[in-house]
C-alpha cells in the first residue's frame, strides 16, 4: 500500500493509466444501479424509523406509513418500554442473548483450545466427533422430544442450549489458535503455567478479534432466533422479541388488545397510534444488529476492501 503511493504520485482518480475513460452512459447507468441498490435497502428502514416517531395526526394524514418526518414523537417508545408484553419480550431476548453468548463462547473457546494441538490423546476422534455435526443433523421432531423430555418447555434454557454450539465457529477458532507460534506455549509451560492459564493469559489476548467476531455471530443468532420460541415457549411473558414482532406485523395482532399499550400516566388519554407502536417494535429488533454490525463489518471486510483496490 505505502510502496504504491510512493511510486505513483497521488492522482485525482485511482483509475489506472491504461484503462479507457468511462463513457458517460456507462457512468450514468452504474450510478443509477448503485442508487437503486442503496435505496432498496435503506428506504424501508427509513420509513420504519420515521413512522415510529410520528404522531397520530401525521400518520392519519399520510394514510399510514410516513416518509417525510414532521415531528419527533417518542411516545411509542415510552409505551413499549413501560411494562407490558413488549417490555417483557425485550428483557427475555436480552437475557437469552447475553447468557447464551457467554455460554457458547466459553464452551466453544475451551473446546477449540483443547483441539488446537494435533498429536494429543484422542485428538483425531474428538475432532471427528465435532466435524460429523456438519453431515448428520438431528431431526426436528426428535429434537423437540428431547428438549421437552428434559422438562425445558417454557424454560429460557430451551432457547439457549440446543443452539449453543456451532461446529463452524469452533473450527474457525481452532484454526486461529493453531496459527499461534508454538514457542509461546513452550515458554509459558517452562514457566510452570497450566493449560487454563496459557489459554487465558496468552491465547485469548492474542485472539481478541476473532473471539469477538465469533461471539458477535453467536449473539446475532440468539437475538434473531424465532422458531425455537414457537416450539418451546407457550407462556406469554417468556416470548422473545422476534415472536412479538411476528404477532404484531405478520399475524396482524393489535398492540392495544395485547396489553402492550397500557395507559401511561402523564401522557393523558391519548395513546400513541398502534402503527407507531408496531414500528417502534421493529426498530427495537433492528437496533442490536446495528450496534453490533460495525465491529463485525470492520473485521470481515478489512481484508477484502484493501485487497480489492485495484493497483
Amino acid at each position, binding site marked *: 500500500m505505502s510502496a504504491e503511493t510512493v511510486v505513483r504520485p497521488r492522482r485525482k482518480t*485511482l483509475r489506472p493509466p*491504461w*484503462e479507457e475513460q468511462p463513457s458517460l452512459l456507462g457512468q450514468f447507468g*452504474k450510478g443509477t444501479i*448503485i442508487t437503486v*441498490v442503496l435505496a*432498496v435497502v435503506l428506504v*424501508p*428502514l427509513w*420509513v*420504519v424509523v420515521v413512522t415510529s416517531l410520528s404522531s397520530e395526526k401525521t400518520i392519519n394524514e399520510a*394514510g*399510514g*406509513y410516513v*416518509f417525510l418526518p414532521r415531528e419527533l414523537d417518542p411516545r411509542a417508545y415510552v409505551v413499549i418500554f413501560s411494562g407490558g408484553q413488549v417490555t417483557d419480550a425485550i428483557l427475555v431476548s436480552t437475557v437469552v442473548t447475553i447468557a447464551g453468548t457467554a455460554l457458547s463462547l466459553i*464452551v*466453544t473457546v*475451551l*473446546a477449540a483450545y*483443547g483441539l488446537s*494441538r494435533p*498429536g*494429543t*490423546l484422542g485428538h483425531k476422534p474428538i475432532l471427528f466427533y*465435532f*466435524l460429523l*455435526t456438519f453431515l*448428520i*443433523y*438431528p*431431526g*426436528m421432531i*426428535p*429434537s*423437540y422430544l*428431547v*428438549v421437552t*423430555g428434559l422438562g425445558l418447555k417454557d424454560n429460557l434454557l430451551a432457547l439457549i442450549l440446543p443452539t*449453543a*454450539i456451532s461446529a463452524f465457529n469452533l473450527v474457525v477458532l481452532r484454526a486461529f489458535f493453531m496459527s*499461534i*507460534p*508454538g514457542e509461546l*506455549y513452550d515458554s509459558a509451560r517452562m514457566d510452570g503455567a497450566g493449560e487454563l492459564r496459557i489459554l487465558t493469559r496468552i491465547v485469548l489476548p492474542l485472539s481478541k478479534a476473532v473471539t469477538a467476531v465469533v461471539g458477535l455471530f453467536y449473539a446475532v443468532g440468539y437475538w434473531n432466533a*424465532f*422458531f425455537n420460541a*414457537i416450539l418451546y415457549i407457550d407462556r406469554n411473558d417468556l416470548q422473545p422479541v*422476534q415472536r412479538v*414482532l411476528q404477532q404484531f*406485523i405478520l399475524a396482524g395482532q393489535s398492540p392495544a388488545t395485547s396489553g402492550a399499550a397500557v395507559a401511561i400516566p402523564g401522557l393523558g388519554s391519548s395513546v400513541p397510534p398502534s402503527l407507531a407502536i408496531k414500528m417502534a417494535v421493529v426498530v427495537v*429488533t*433492528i437496533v442490536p*444488529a446495528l450496534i453490533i454490525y460495525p465491529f463485525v*463489518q470492520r473485521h*470481515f*471486510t478489512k481484508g*477484502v*476492501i484493501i485487497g480489492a483496490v*485495484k*493497483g
Partner: protein
Amino acid sequence: MSAPPIVAEKRTAAKKATAVPRQQLSFGQRLRRDWPLLLMCVPAMLLLLVFHYIPALGNVIAFQDYNPFVGDNPLEAFLYSEWIGFGNFEYLFENPAFWDSVLTTLSITAFQLVFYFPIPILLAILLNSIMSPRVRSLVQSVVYLPHFFSWVLVVSLFQMMLGGAGLIAQTAREAGYTAPDIMTNPDTFMFLITSQAVWKDAGWGMIVFLAALAAIDPALYEASAADGAGRWRRMWHITLPGLRSVIVLLLILRLGDALNVGFEQFVLQREMVGREAAEVLDTYVYYQGIAVQQWGVGAAAGLFKAVVGILLIVGANKLAHRFGEQGIYSKS
C-alpha cells in the same frame, strides 16, 4: 530467490513446535500430559451429545408408531411404542402432499439457482468497478447489513412495503389505483421469496466473490488492455475465468444442499399464501409431526430428508473433486 526457503523453514519449525512430538509415550503418560485438554472438550461434547447426536439417533422413531401417551416422558414413550418397520414411510410415499412438498422444495432450489445465484456475482463485479474507496465501502456496509436481520424482520419489512396495507399499496391508493397484494398471492410466491432472499443475503454472498476478484493479478488486465482488449473483453477473458473456480464450487455446494431452502422464511408465510405454494419439506415435517402430532410420519419425512441430504452432499463433493476443486471435505 533465497527468501522463500527460509520462510518455508520457519513455517515447518513453527508447525513442529505447535504439534506435540509423537514420542513413544504410553497411554497413561499421554493421559497424564493431556487430560486438561481433554477436559476442556467435554462441555461442548456433552452439549452436542444431548442436543445433536441423541436427537439424530432419535430419528429411529420414524420406524415406530410413536405415541407420547404410553409413557410418562418421551424416553418411556419411545420404549413402549410399537415398532412398525417401514409403515410410516409407506404412508409417506403414498401421500401426495409429501411429494408436493418435495417438488416445491426442488423447484425453489432450481428457481433460485437461476434468479438468486448470479446476483452476488454481478454485485461483486459492479462493486469492484467502483473507483472511489469511500463509495465502495459505503455500498458494502449497506448491502451487508440485512444479513444480520432475522427472517421475521425481513418478512415483516416486505409485508410493510408490499402487503395489502403496505407502503406501495398506500401510495397507489392515493394515486387512485389498487395495487395487488403480493404477499398473499400464491402465483408470485416464488418471486417473492427469492426477492426476500436476495434482499437479505445477496450482499453478504458477494464477499467470497470480492475476495476472488481481489486475487486476480492486475497485470493481466493491464497486459490485455495493452493488447487492445476493451472493457467487456477483459471482463469475459479475465474476470470471469478468475471467478470460475469459486462459481463452480458454490454451485456444487448448492446442489448438495438442494433440499434445504430455509425454514423460518416459509413457516412465517405459509399461512399468508397457503399450503400449496409455501409447503417445503421442512415445513411438512413440522406440520405433520408437531402440529398434527403424527410423530412417526413427521420423523420419517425428516429422516428421508436427512438421508437424501447426506447422499447429495457426498455426491456433490465427488463432483467437486472431479472438477478439480476442494469441496467441503478433502479425499484423504
